[in-house]
């Protein structure tokens, strides 16, 4: 099942980006410089390119799988927006709790967060299809 493989790869890519972004945040500090902004854009662009290559060349999703992939994308966008708004609303409470300013770092984890949400949502959708047909 190619779609399942894609979601697994997406999950690993998401976790990989979380690690990379955490390392950048730890070693370069919470403030983002212009150079770091450039690195961020390069990382995001590469992640999308990798996903596109996996989807089109390596895994060759068929028409039904492509539709399922897009459907899980719509659900993920909704969940993603809810999470982003929630984090934005409670950032003051989170900052005082963990002793860091969330406004400097939360932008770093947007892409990995979306990839993880998409992979998990897609996997749940696949399993739901298997059980309820």
């Amino acid at each position: 099942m190619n779609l399942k493989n894609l979601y697994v790869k997406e999950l690993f890519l998401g976790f990989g980006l979380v690690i990379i972004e955490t390392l950048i945040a730890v070693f370069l500090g919470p403030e983002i410089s212009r150079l770091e902004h450039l690195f961020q854009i390069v990382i995001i662009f590469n992640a999308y390119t990798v996903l596109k290559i996996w989807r089109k060349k390596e895994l060759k999703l068929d028409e039904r799988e492509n539709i399922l992939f897009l459907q899980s994308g719509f659900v993920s966008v909704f969940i993603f927006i809810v999470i982003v708004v929630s984090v934005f609303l409670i950032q003051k409470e989170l900052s005082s709790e963990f002793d860091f300013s969330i406004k400097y770092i939360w932008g770093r984890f947007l892409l990995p967060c979306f990839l993880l949400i998409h992979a998990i949502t897609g996997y749940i959708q696949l399993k739901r299809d298997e059980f309820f047909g």
Partner: protein
Amino acid sequence: MKNKLRVLRAERNISQEELAKMLNVSRQTINAIEREKYDPSLPLGLKIAKLFNKPVEEIFFTEDER
């Protein structure tokens, strides 16, 4: 939309896996079409019709056409 894919496949003694390979789609897609959970696109429908050497309307039809 209804279809006779399962019957045609059984007549020719082809497995879902084999048919999926012939049509260049996944086995799950063939299964979904047979269970009428997914309506194939026109190109895939035409491919199926060509493979079984039958007109498309003989394989795929609506409920009221039965």
